[in-house]
């Protein structure tokens, strides 16, 4: 125990040292031009890396195996250490993250003003302001969404999160399909805004493209602050449970590290 504490202190000291070193570089004034930023969405499940069709146990004892994990990431805003922000142009700020399509999990944001960025915010889903505009501003995203199976054709809306697979529990003993689709219902809009800090600043330069590594813990979808029991109903595409799953998104994401190579 003592040894561990020592280690922690050592790591903290090192971190402090590094932080103070990097502070010297935090001279935003001298940084000009534009660069790019990469954002990686790395899906995990609890303390394990997520893999499709692999069994994970939720706190209620339900064992789930997922075969579809997709979510819409939108409206990315980057905040610099000095508090100023860069908002990615709205029409270029809608993405579908699909666990089974690796290329989709790494976003490249171009034309980012050079600077030291400390945090990010984004939405999960398509915001209500955009949706209320109708076709305006959608460009071809409806096509992209339909191709990805992220369109709710019966209500002309987007699926914000699609999480599907099979599960078993003490009462459901054979593999049974489950589907969680979040999105707008007649009562709730169910768009979530996520704001998370970087452990280290992302240093965007004309010649440096930092990579922000975000861990998305899928366990939170059903087994987060709100517990959703699939045994009570395994097709969740509407009603009050969507609001519960949406609230769970708030704790699903964390920035694990930032590469400034």
């Amino acid at each position, binding site marked *: 125990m003592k040894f561990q504490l020592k280690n922690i202190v050592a790591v903290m000291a090192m971190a402090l040292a590094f932080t103070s070193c990097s502070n010297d570089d935090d001279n935003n004034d001298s940084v000009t031009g534009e660069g790019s930023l990469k954002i990686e969405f790395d899906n995990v499940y609890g303390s394990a890396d997520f893999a499709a069709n692999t069994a994970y146990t939720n706190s209620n004892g339900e064992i789930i195996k997922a075969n579809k994990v997709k979510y819409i990431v939108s409206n990315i805003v980057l905040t610099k250490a000095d508090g100023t922000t860069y908002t990615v142009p709205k029409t270029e700020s809608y993405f579908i993250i699909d666990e089974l399509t690796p290329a989709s999990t790494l976003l490249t944001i171009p034309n980012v003003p050079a600077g030291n960025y400390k945090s990010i915010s984004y939405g999960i889903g398509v915001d209500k302001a955009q949706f209320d505009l*109708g*076709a305006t501003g959608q460009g071809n995203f409806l096509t992209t969404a339909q191709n990805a199976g992220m369109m709710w054709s019966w209500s002309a809306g987007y699926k914000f999160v699609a999480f599907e697979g099979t599960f078993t529990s003490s009462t459901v003993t054979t593999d049974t399909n489950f589907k969680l689709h979040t999105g707008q219902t007649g009562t709730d809009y169910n768009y979530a805004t996520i704001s998370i800090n970087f452990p280290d600043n992302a240093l965007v330069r004309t010649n440096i493209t930092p990579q922000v590594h975000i861990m998305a813990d899928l366990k939170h979808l059903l087994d987060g602050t709100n517990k959703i029991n699939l045994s009570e109903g395994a097709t969740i595409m509407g009603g009050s449970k969507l609001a519960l799953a949406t609230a769970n998104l708030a704790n699903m994401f964390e920035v694990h590290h930032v590469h400034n190579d």
Partner: protein
Amino acid sequence: MKTKILLLLIFPILWSCSSDDSDEYQNIPIDFQIPSNFPAANYNFANNPLTEKGFELGKKLFYDGRLSSDGIVSCGFCHIQEDAFTHHGHTFSHGVGDAIGTRNAPPIQNMVFQTTFMWDGATTHLDLQPIIPFTSEIEMHGNFENAINMMKNDAAYKKLYKQAFSNGEINSENMLKALAQFQILLVSSNSRFDKYRRNEQGGNFTADELDGYTIFNQKCASCHATDIFTDNSFRNNGLPVNPSINDVGRYRVTELPQDMNKFKVPSLRNIEKTAPYMHDGRFFTLEAVLDHYSSGVVNSTTLDASLNNSGVLGISLSSSEKTKLIAFLKTLTDNEFLTNPKFAEY
């Protein structure tokens, strides 16, 4: 033979004169006038300004079966102009692969004056509404990418998109905007009723029609409100649930128990032409509809309060009142709309 050659010579001349030849954006605005007896429009025209070419493109899309998976079923397949853009005689419509739906195709008219669409209000924006029938597996089963590829390889579409939109792009946004423009302009506002309301020539009612209008205002207008004849609400009008379909109505959208078996109050315009009636097309005549309201209403936890007067269900209507109501309802037929060549497929 001589005439033929002459025509062949003249035709290209006419063609080149026409502005249709241009691939440029043609900003010819359409002056959209709201009839004086109508409520306000529910649309942001600044985001999708109505133009002649936008409307023309929308009409082409509306009647193009190539948008569907089988190349045949267009919007206009189930929405026929002379029936106020319903599928006359069809309780349920058949889509691609002879798939059959579970709800009666509603009319397309005066859409921009409504705030919710579909029988259960599944969508609230006119631009996005076509996504539902376009993508539904039992209707058009369309795919945006396939449709866009088809249009990108079609000379007429390539030209029309450039003429209709300043960015000229063939994409899902512009496709839906054009369809919205066509639907917005499907306004039925020149029935005899409208002329009566606006004190215009031809707006004369018979004694029966006038009585019918009075009865209507007393007994029907609380739901079929305004000159659009709907308050855009969802209500359970006491139809016995068809167990073979068990349509939950608005509940599908909200999953709220109080919305079980509620459906959107439909407009009554051109009602003479839109049989069969109700969300599931169960009644073939207006007489059957009124008989339902006078003696067929069944109770349930979500029955509309206006149809339950201290345990007495329905609306009291004598047979003479029914006759007069139907006489009034037939004044809502707008032949100018039903036969306007601007909206016609051919």
